[in-house]
């Protein structure tokens, strides 16, 4: 008996060691939720997708052994993702599974891979090209994607600019009116998923006035697009006469929008100010911190504290979490850099309760502790930075990190 329990104990210990490697950063979650690390040390893991059989696909923004996509599979169903398949020779951010295809993006191309009946990639080395030639000028170049149920894919084409100045990021350089960047970036473009080898001109500019809508998801409850946008940098540094160290850290808001076709979110002319609840004219366009602007631009559903970098958005569809989470929004905040010299903020996953496509309460921090410290004074010290979100068929929530390349699985098990 003693021998048996010793062996059992040893087995549990070994199993735990594999399943939960390097559990150095414990996450803080609401009561009843539990987290496990299901992948670690894959480098720059950006967005992630989880297939109906539990396979995890990770898009890497830095190649690992020459590969930019990793599939993790628990082939023997013991709870450990021991089976690794690496493919794709390009870096990038976007990834998603839709109607029998795995989609993945580089910073200028949308690729896709047919999946067979056994949920395997048919030909990992020969993806189809859905769209090529999307603007890639390196700044805000990540191409995140989502899908509606009418055969369309939506892709974020971020503006390669801070606030569309004549000279980008040059203190004192005026803003351009109209901003020429908005012609082929600074918005969401819609493409068909039924036609291969499309070019940029085959797409429709679905919505505009977005600096970098890195978080993007389709809300099936109301059949509409939702995005989270990274707000502009440098209000305090460029305009110390209007903003101080503290207000420049808090402003502008990071934003969460419900977007209809043709909507304009106001970039680069205005930024959202969650203290005044107004679209404030950017100083590069004649603003003074109070003047409003862009009357035709829509307002966000939520304005969050500045610079926290909402890198991913997921509208929760599952039934595993308690009822209040259904149709609500999870947002992964990468964590700020442009709050210096104030402490950095973010490095957590937020939840916004929603029903019928509208928020029903205040936003709350759902999963915290990724940075491994508080406060974060130097960004380089933060241990993990949440970047991607995915939902399993069982309703589990997955969170990726592009600092150390971890993926967490969060389940509800009271």
């Amino acid at each position, binding site marked *: 008996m003693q021998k048996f329990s010793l062996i059992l104990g040893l087995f549990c210990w070994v199993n735990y060691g594999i399943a939960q490697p390097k559990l150095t950063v414990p996450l803080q979650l609401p009561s009843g939720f539990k987290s496990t690390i299901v992948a670690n040390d894959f480098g*720059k893991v950006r967005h992630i997708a989880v297939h109906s059989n539990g396979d995890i696909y990770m898009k890497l*923004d*830095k190649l690992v052994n020459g590969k930019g996509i990793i599939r993790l599979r628990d082939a023997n169903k013991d709870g450990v993702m021991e089976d690794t398949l690496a493919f794709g020779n390009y870096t990038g951010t976007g990834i998603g599974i839709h109607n029998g295809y795995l989609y993945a993006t580089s910073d200028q191309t949308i690729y896709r891979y047919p999946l067979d009946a056994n949920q395997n990639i048919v030909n990992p080395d020969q993806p189809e090209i859905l769209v090529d030639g999307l603007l890639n000028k*390196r*700044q805000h*170049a990540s191409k995140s994607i989502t899908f509606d149920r009418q055969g369309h894919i939506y892709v974020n084409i971020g503006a390669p600019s801070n606030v569309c100045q004549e*000279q*980008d*990021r*040059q*203190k*004192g350089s005026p803003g351009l009116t109209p901003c020429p960047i908005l012609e082929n970036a600074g918005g969401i473009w819609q493409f068909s998923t039924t036609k291969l080898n499309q070019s940029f001109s085959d797409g429709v500019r679905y919505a505009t006035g977005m600096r970098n809508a890195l978080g993007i998801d389709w809300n099936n409850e109301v059949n509409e697009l939702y995005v989270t946008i990274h707000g502009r*940098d*440098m209000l305090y*540094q460029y305009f110390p006469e209007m903003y101080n160290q503290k207000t420049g850290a808090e402003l502008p808001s990071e934003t969460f929008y419900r977007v209809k076709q043709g909507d304009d979110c106001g970039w680069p002319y205005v930024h959202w100010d969650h203290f005044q609840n107004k679209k404030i004219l950017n100083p590069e366009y004649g603003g003074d911190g109070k003047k409003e602007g862009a009357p035709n631009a829509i307002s966000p559903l939520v304005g969050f504290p500045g610079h926290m970098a909402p890198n991913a958005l997921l509208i929760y569809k599952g039934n595993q979490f308690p009822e209040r989470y259904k149709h609500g929004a999870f947002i992964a905040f990468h964590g700020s*850099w*442009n709050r*210096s*010299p104030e402490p950095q903020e973010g490095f957590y996953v937020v939840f916004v309760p929603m029903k019928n496509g509208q928020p029903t309460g205040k936003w709350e921090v759902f999963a915290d502790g990724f940075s491994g410290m508080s406060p974060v*004074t*130097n*960004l*380089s*010290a933060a241990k993990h930075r949440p970047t991607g979100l995915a939902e399993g068929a069982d309703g589990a929530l997955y969170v990726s990190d*592009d*600092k150390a390349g971890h993926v967490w699985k969060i389940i509800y098990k009271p």
Partner: protein
Amino acid sequence: MRFKKHCILYCLSMLLGFLVSAQSKTLSESKRLANGKKVYSMYCLACHQADGNGVPRLNPPLAGTDYVTGSKTRLIDIVLYGLTEPLEINDEVYNNPMASHAFLSDQQVADVLSYIRNSFGNKAGMIAATEVKKQRNRQPKK
């Protein structure tokens, strides 16, 4: 005897002179580094961070890179003329553009560069305002 006395006096005065000049050099250097730190806090820290480690994917580090501790003219040019090409440092690519900071005076540029060359674990020579002026007066490469 008299010669010996002279010699000692001479040596003492030389030593004193050396000590004074060394001391004043250190004083002016530390003053320049303090001024450089001020310039850094105002114009550089937001992107390159308080610890000089920058921001992954976006803003390059100033700690532990040849761009800072190597060629003075290349470093001065980055501050005066900005930088828009992708920069790879220690296996990481940085994508945000660096704006021209030509609005800073020669002395401010010299001081802030001397400061970053001697901070964050870096140890490299000071940069003089005359060296900045020389780079400012040449035609920038297009």
